[in-house]
């Protein structure tokens, strides 16, 4: 599978927090890195399901790995694609029905892929301006708790590539 690697210049706030906690001691804390940790993100398998003519909602799926402990906190696409974009999770309710809810933050463990796939987490495209056509791409910008962002092109297809 084709992988795209994005180097992110944002400084991981988690690392900064760890550094400040150690500042009260007179001894040298060699566990604190001399330079701030830089989050890098690897995204693969990004795709969006094609939308029938009458569907005004769409979904983007992908796998993403961060080099630091992080959290996916948002996603956005051009308003030429959809009026609003949210990170959602499909859940099974107590009565066996399935529904969705917006998720403010999806935790990510360093170097462990976070999977957004049908029936689970997905990036929901709301009020599509025009149908998603097979073969075209949707540029999606992901935002992380660390302050990092990355942009990925999701290819529109009928099913998972």
């Amino acid at each position, binding site marked *: 599978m084709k992988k795209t690697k994005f180097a992110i210049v944002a400084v991981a706030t988690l690392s900064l927090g760890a550094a400040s906690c150690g500042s009260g001691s007179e001894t040298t804390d060699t566990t604190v890195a001399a330079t701030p940790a830089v989050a890098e993100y690897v995204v693969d398998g990004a795709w969006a*399901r094609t*939308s*029938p*003519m*009458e*569907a*005004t*909602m*769409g*979904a983007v799926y992908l796998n993403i790995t961060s080099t630091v402990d992080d959290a996916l906190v948002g996603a956005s696409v051009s308003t030429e694609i959809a009026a609003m974009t949210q990170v*959602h999770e*499909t859940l099974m*309710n107590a*009565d*066996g*029905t*399935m*529904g*969705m809810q917006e998720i403010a933050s999806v935790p990510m463990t360093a170097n462990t892929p976070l999977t957004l796939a*049908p*029936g689970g987490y*997905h990036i*929901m*495209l709301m009020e599509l301006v025009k149908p998603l056509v097979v073969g075209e791409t949707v540029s999606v910008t992901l935002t992380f708790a660390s302050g990092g962002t990355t942009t990925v092109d999701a290819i529109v297809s*009928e*099913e998972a590539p």
Partner: protein
Amino acid sequence: MKKISQLLLALVASTAILPACATDSSSLMGMTRDQPLVVGSISLPDVSENGVSQNFFFKAEEGHLLTVFFGYTMCPDICPTSLSDFRSALRRLGDRAQKIDLAFVTVDPQRDTAEKLIPFLGSYATNFHAIRTSDASQLSLAQDAFLVRSSVTTDDSGHIQVTHTGTGFIVNSDGIVVSELPFGIGPDGMENDFNVLLNKIETGEMK
């Protein structure tokens, strides 16, 4: 990589053997019940012919299988996943796909007009029935027969929230649910069950 290849080979080998070892009923990948659901006497309006309502009974044509899903057209994840898996399964069936019909029951009739349902379903199937009733008690009666639940509510921010059972149902010409397809069974599972059940029809084991 070699280990992964060997593991895949082992998996393929084991899945290839399983159906041969199993009995006919257990070779279905969907769920079956000791007392299967009987839905053939239940009817709802079919609006797939230019929006004109015709009474539709939940039973397959003779020699066919009917696949029933409950959902709504503005569903971004569950419904398009199930319906595209259904479309993929039918493509794999080739000519046999002509014996598989689709009935899609909207649980969101306020927004899902016939004008929305017909092109939506047309992108997934050729032989489809767009089922829509604005009578909540009539919809509830049909859902009860399939043991399905749904709800349409508006949240504090004004967004309409819809929940519904994600299971699909394969119904025979007697109006009996012969396989229940859990969400996520995928095109492989659906194709398998269509083939198993069409074989039963062709051998006369099932109507």
